[in-house]
């Protein structure tokens, strides 16, 4: 019996020491100097409702990405057809399903089909009906290809956003993919949510297009847009008055150069008036293209189009080699910096929509921590006092177990990297109330056994064994609820489920092993005769 006791005592002691070790990093004051890397380093992770910060769910409009892919394919195929000298009447994207082609000469059918099956394998060729002279086809994008494109777009979006946030500099940012092309972003401690949201939402699609000086812009504005041209506006928002001016430009639709070729984007201050501008560096291929464009179009204007608006349209004074360009606009320092970040990190493959946002300011977070802990301590003290009064010395033993249980719960949170949220604190308070239940069950049984005339030791044995079954049953059902909550819950509710689960397990361990051990020790080893319960 006493050997058994010693072993149990040692195991419990080890357990408690390990728990305390896991708690050291979370202590106010942090880890001491000598706390080496082998020992646990993580503080208890606080939820956003306690730390302050932003929780966002974005949806990537992946279908747009498919549209973009199809548009690119249209441009590519046009080039290919020109090379093969195949004349076409019509070559247009059809929604997100495919591309419609009308060839002008029947003889080209074979070459066309060969070309598509060789180089555009993600499309199925369907006959589009007969035409007098020529052939009509619909190139349908295969389902797998479309799904793949959407999945890829979502992953690229996630990566791009992660890069931008990295640059923005948020410690412990959490970015992950969810189902249905959604991305979940958690940024603890961010104090300017609007700026962060803007940064993430920016598509940052940079395109260089040539300004059309031959055709009349006024004609175009009336509705007569020449083929291969489009009207794009420069949007200027006056910083002070808030007035918006829109200046139209007639641009060639063809994209000469995109942001994909940019290797770097830096904010520089204009030496003359101190206003910020963004200077770009292209990679080798981009530099070559830029050189060619500027060389072929001296004295014409090159429009820099960002997210569908003209940012500026400077004159090309001479051929530019070396691959550097500059974007000027009416930026504030923050605007310039965010633009540079967006360009460096790359453009989003498709626009994103905000589905859900929860922001908690840091002051509210701190408040919640303070109030949560205060109510927890007061509640715990009330319970402790009550137990001591109602059950005497046995009550004090129960209180000791409660303290150990609390340590185990906090250690469990630290060890399993669970997140403590405000509902989680409520969960701990609940667990304290319910842990008492196990004690009450045991003590009431012991009282009954004592009344039947049994000795303290026998009564204790009987009390524990009979109560254990009930305790397990009751805790399992609460565990079922906690698991369901974990499955279906999000954010703070999930934190609640985790804390509740850890609490239940801690309660069971404490009541089944530790309280039992203390009683056995006192009444067997120390040979207490009377029991106050």
């Amino acid at each position, binding site marked *: 019996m006493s050997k058994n006791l010693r072993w149990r005592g040692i195991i419990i002691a080890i357990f408690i020491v390990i728990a305390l070790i896991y708690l050291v990093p979370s202590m106010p004051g942090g880890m001491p100097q000598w706390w080496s890397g082998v020992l646990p380093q993580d503080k208890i992770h606080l939820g956003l409702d306690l730390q302050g910060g932003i929780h966002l769910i974005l949806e990537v409009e992946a279908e747009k990405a498919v549209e973009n892919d199809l548009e690119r394919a249209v441009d590519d195929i046009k080039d290919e057809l020109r090379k093969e000298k195949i004349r076409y009447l019509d070559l247009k994207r059809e929604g997100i399903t495919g591309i419609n082609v009308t060839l002008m000469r029947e003889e080209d059918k074979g070459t066309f089909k060969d070309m598509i099956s060789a180089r555009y394998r993600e499309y199925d060729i369907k006959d589009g009906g007969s035409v007098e002279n020529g052939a009509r086809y619909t190139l349908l994008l295969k389902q797998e290809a479309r799904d793949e494109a959407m999945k890829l777009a979502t992953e690229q979006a996630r990566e791009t956003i992660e890069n931008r946030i990295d640059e923005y500099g948020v410690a412990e940012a959490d970015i992950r993919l969810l189902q249905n092309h959604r991305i979940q972003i958690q940024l603890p401690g961010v104090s300017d*949510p609007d700026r962060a949201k803007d940064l993430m939402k920016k598509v940052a699609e940079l395109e260089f297009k040539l300004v059309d000086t031959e055709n009349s812009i006024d004609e175009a504005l009336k509705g007569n847009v020449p083929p291969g041209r489009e009207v794009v506006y420069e949007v200027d928002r006056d910083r002070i008055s808030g007035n918006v001016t829109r200046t139209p430009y007639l641009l060639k639709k063809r994209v000469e150069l995109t942001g994909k070729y940019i290797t770097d984007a830096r904010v520089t201050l204009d030496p003359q008036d101190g206003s910020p501008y963004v200077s770009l560096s292209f990679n080798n291929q981009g530099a070559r293209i830029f050189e060619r464009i500027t060389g072929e179009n001296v004295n014409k204007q090159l429009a820099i189009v960002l997210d569908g608006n003209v940012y500026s349209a400077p004159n090309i004074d001479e051929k530019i080699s070396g691959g550097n360009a500059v974007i000027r606009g009416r930026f504030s320092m923050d605007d310039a910096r965010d633009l540079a970040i967006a360009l460096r990190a790359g453009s989003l493959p498709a626009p994103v929509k905000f589905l*859900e946002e929860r922001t908690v300011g840091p002051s509210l977070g701190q408040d919640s921590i303070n109030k949560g802990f205060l109510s927890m301590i007061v509640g715990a003290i009330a319970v402790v006092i009550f137990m001591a009064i109602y059950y005497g010395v046995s009550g004090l033993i129960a209180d000791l177990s409660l303290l150990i249980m609390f340590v185990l719960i906090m250690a469990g949170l630290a060890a399993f990297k669970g997140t403590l949220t405000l509902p989680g604190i409520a969960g701990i308070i609940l667990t304290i109330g319910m842990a008492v*239940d196990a004690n009450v069950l045991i003590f009431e049984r012991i009282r009954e056994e004592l009344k039947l005339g049994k000795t303290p030791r026998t009564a204790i044995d009987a009390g524990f064994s009979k109560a254990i079954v009930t305790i397990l049953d009751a805790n399992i059902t609460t565990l*079922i609820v906690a698991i369901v909550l974990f499955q279906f819950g999000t954010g703070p509710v999930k934190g609640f489920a985790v804390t509740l689960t850890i609490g239940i397990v801690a309660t069971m361990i404490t009541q089944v092993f530790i309280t039992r051990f203390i009683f056995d020790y006192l009444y067997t080893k120390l040979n207490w005769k009377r029991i106050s319960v």
Partner: protein
Amino acid sequence: MQLIKDDVNINFIGNRKKAYAFSLALIVISILLLLYRGGPNLGVDFTGGTLIQVKMAKAHTPAELREALKPINLQDSIIQEFGEKDLFEYLIRVQNPDIESEGLEDKVINVLSEKFGESAEMRSFEMVGPKVGSDLRDKASLAILYSILLIAIYISGRFELKWAKSITMTVALGFVIFIASKMGASIVWLSIIVLIATIILLWVLNLKYAMGAVIALVHDVTITVGVFALTDREISLSIIAALLTIIGYSLNDTIVVFDRIRENVARFKKRDLGEVMNTSINQTLSRTILTAATTLVAVISLYVLGGAVIHDFAFAMIIGIVIGTYSSIFVASPVILAWEGKAEKKK
């Protein structure tokens, strides 16, 4: 110290008709209230919309704030005081889906501090898109449904050792879920249908203990939601968590009583079931009241000291614990007894 005497012998079972009446009245009132208000008062989590918590430097009436928000088109939002009066905090709820959430946080703070010439602080901001809102509604219904289902299955197996029947019921329910979802029912209605199907199945399969427990749980949840409707409080995601916790707690209680009944039924084979149940409830009364008391103490501490954010959650827990304890004593066992009574009469 002992609050409940050893020889306590309150005739719970004898008074069950009164308890039925009381419970029924509460449930009917709850349902009527909910119907009258067109459903529970759902928070932005479930309806979609934006909820903004601001802190001003001085007290303001909701009307003043609404006037101040006109320039950004928010004059139709619902504005109320939040928390203690001396904190000057207000909740602005924007239901209109056409309001741009872009930059809304900055706009609100700027407009408010402009108008009143004092500092305005954004304490928290929640925006839930309509898609997410209906998603969360679905998840909440499913969570409550699955909890009750799993519990029904567990109790059938554990207390009646009828695991086979338990499995039959699971399969049958799976079938019902399948058919109902094919009919295109919304998830919320589907959950209600499956719940009713569960109760019917429990009846048909004669799983009395599970039946008693499930009815007690449904009783508890309905009345708690009813009290929320009565006090015009919002049902948010954390309240759903509270409801599920109440299910867990009430079940806890109920199982303790069931355990004792089972033990006593085995011991006093000759006695009439009603008498055995009464004895069992009285024997566990001490424990039931004590646990309820200590858990209540802890939760009341949360209610009083925990701050405005967790306030409604604590309120739900208080109601739930009280009603849950009541149902373990006055609802779960009598239901089983009523059944046995019918079975006896049939013989």
